[in-house]
């Protein structure tokens, strides 16, 4: 490995969080962003091909050294580390809506899921997986939510583009702004059936 790759390895070891390439550039005044990226590639190959228990993962826009999945069970048995608690189905469904529709308000989430969302939104905010990104111009200026880098980290994604795309799902994605079921729609349907 080059000295730069070794320096990056040391920095990633010291930081207990994903570190962005931009942050890694500041390690060495002579290194360019491209050189850092090349060194990261070298480090990844080093871990992957030289028989290491750890690997380099790109998470939420940053890089982190993590253990290989095969060792998780043994590490947990020895109580040297533990997995993150799993998300509840309600949390996952709410995150799914927010991830694809962000920025999105509570009313839209509730409309899609058919259940109240205030409790689950609060828990997701407390876990740092979503954040308020602004307010809608609509009536009452409701809060709008979006996902955080921690959300990407939790799913092991580099960015939102790593989420499954429309064509990979069995059901085609609806357009970003679907027709909301308002009283008017219902009334129209009723009149149509009544006519």
């Amino acid at each position: 490995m080059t000295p730069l790759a070794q320096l990056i390895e040391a920095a990633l070891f010291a930081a207990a969080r994903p570190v962005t390439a931009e942050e890694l550039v500041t390690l060495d005044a002579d290194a360019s962003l491209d050189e850092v990226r090349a060194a990261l590639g070298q480090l990844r190959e080093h871990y992957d091909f030289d028989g290491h228990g750890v690997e380099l993962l790109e998470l939420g826009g940053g890089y982190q050294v993590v253990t290989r999945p095969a060792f998780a069970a043994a590490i947990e048995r020895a109580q040297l580390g533990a997995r993150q608690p799993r998300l509840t189905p309600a949390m996952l469904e709410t995150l799914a809506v927010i991830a694809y529709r962000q920025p999105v308000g509570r009313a839209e989430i509730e409309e899609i899921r058919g259940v109240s969302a205030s409790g689950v939104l609060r828990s997701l905010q407390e876990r740092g997986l979503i954040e308020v990104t602004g307010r809608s111009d609509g009536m009452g200026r409701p809060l709008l939510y979006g996902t955080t880098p921690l959300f990407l980290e939790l799913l092991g994604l580099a960015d939102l583009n790593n989420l499954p795309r429309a064509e990979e799902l069995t059901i085609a994605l609806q357009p970003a702004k679907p027709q909301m079921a308002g009283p008017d729609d219902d009334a129209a349907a009723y009149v149509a059936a009544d006519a």
Partner: protein
Amino acid sequence: MTASVLTTTLVPDAPASGIAPPSPEAAAILGSLGFVVRLESFSGPLDLLLHLLREEQIDIADIPIARIADQFLAAIKHLGLNQAAEYLEMASRLVRLKIQMLLPRNQDGEAWEDPRAELVRRLLEYQQVREIAHWMSAAADRRALRLARGYLPPSPELPPLPLTLDLLDLLSAVERVIASILHPVLHSVVARPLNVEGAALRVQALLAEREEFVWTSALGPSPTISDVLSLLLALLELARRGQCFMIQPAVFAPLVIRRDSSRPAH
């Protein structure tokens, strides 16, 4: 718990609904009880509806509303009230759709707008959300197997609830706080016991001979602050018991103590 368990011909299915399939043990228990479904295993009315459609192998685009509405109503019949509103709202939608489907359709060949269209759209949309949630769940599981450095399990050492402290704990905590102050200003506090009983006896003695008196008459010649406090507490206690009445004839006027409240103060 019993309210959320009902007997119908349904069993929550596992992989298709994606999230939180029942564990083998739970499935075995469910099986041994006959056909039992726990409504709390559904994350909402749309989930329950999708489940019913799958059970009946129904094409989502052509839902037999009457049958599904009846099944939906049967399924939520024993639902705990805490979640009922959301399910009831869906039930009322379904019943209305059922009625709409019974209405005669337009005769003159005009395009007939299917009243189920909105429901179908919502179901498809929700099914898609379920699919994404399922994918996310799997991604999170894969990610959770990769432990980052320095990750320690959350500390289980929370203080026992409810917090219990005895006087000794409290005093030693005070000691620690005082010890951390560089130049503590310490006061010695002398306890001056109040004599509420004595003051009450004096008030009762005065009331025995007089119909009313100004409260300061119950004080001795040179009252101390604890004498005044004792008297005030005694008066409040006697008034609470209904053994005397306190009247303030005018703003800022001294309190008048009366034996009874029947006559107005002059």
